């Protein structure tokens, strides 16, 4: 879910310098019905919040969520009327990636943590510190 500045770093993760394809995650599906992982990258405004929730509901189980960036994790630098103060108030999050925006390395580490969670079976919010 590319919303704002973090979306550009998310696109950079697919580029040749960081290359998420070597982890097997290069395909960004347009449709939530076919996706396993939702990366919310960017600030979520109140107008966009129902859309995020609806997309999460439309995903088929099992599904995971990465909250990328400070704005998605906690509202970031925008402590005001317009921004949802953390998407964990609307969808359950598995990995939080701090940064404004996080470097693409951080997102790669987050995907690694998700893969670790899938292997080991744990769920719940983990902070990807890179």
């Amino acid at each position, binding site marked *: 879910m590319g919303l704002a500045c973090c979306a550009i770093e998310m696109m950079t993760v697919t580029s040749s310098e960081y290359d998420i394809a070597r982890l097997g995650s290069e395909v960004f599906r347009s449709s939530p019905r076919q996706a396993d992982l939702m990366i919310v990258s960017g600030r979520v405004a*109140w*107008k966009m919040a129902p859309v995020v929730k609806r997309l999460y509901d439309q995903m088929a189980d099992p599904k995971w969520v990465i909250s990328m960036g400070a704005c998605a994790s906690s509202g970031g630098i925008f*402590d*005001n*009327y317009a921004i949802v103060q953390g998407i964990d108030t609307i969808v359950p999050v598995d990995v939080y990636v701090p940064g404004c925006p996080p470097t693409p390395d951080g997102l790669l580490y987050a995907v690694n943590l998700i893969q670790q969670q899938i292997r080991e079976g744990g769920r719940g919010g983990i902070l990807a510190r890179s």
Partner: protein
Amino acid sequence: MPSTQTPPLAGTAIDPPSLRPPIDDAVIERVEPSALRERLSALKAEGYTMLLDLGAVDYPERTPRFDVVYHLLKMPARAASVSEVGKPARTRLLCAVDGANPRLPSVMDLWSSADWAEREVFDLFGIIFEGHRDLRRIQLPYDWEGHPLRKDYPTRGAARERSPRPAFANKMNVQAGTPPSGRTLEALQEQIKRAREADSK
């Protein structure tokens, strides 16, 4: 050159454009709401083909509360090279609108770009533009209550004022000239007085 340490105007922002000579290259003009459309049509006929921007400012301590600012640019319609464009003239038109019932005529028919700009001013300030074909909220959800960019709307939103941040973390507390911890001379004297009264009891 004005000093940066001149004391602030006691928090009043009467009419900043009139406080000093213009510092940018625009011709500044003030106009009444009743004469607004006429003046803008005249400017458009003079060659001001582009309405660069339409914004508003809220001065709650002043009687015509809002100022709606129109930025115009005199762009020639045929200007295929930089020398033909030259240095286009800029104009800034300020229109003071009453706070109790803010209404202004819409200029959508003169410049189509005013469409979304007027919707945004309505959304964030509550100024109604008469004659607009579709005046509804543009930036905020359709059922939002309140107009956020007014000065009496809290920055963190009405719902979150119930859980305020601690006073030291809120930069709004720091007025220019006041120590952030509140330890002014008056506060200290007040404290001494209270301590003496407590002692003498």
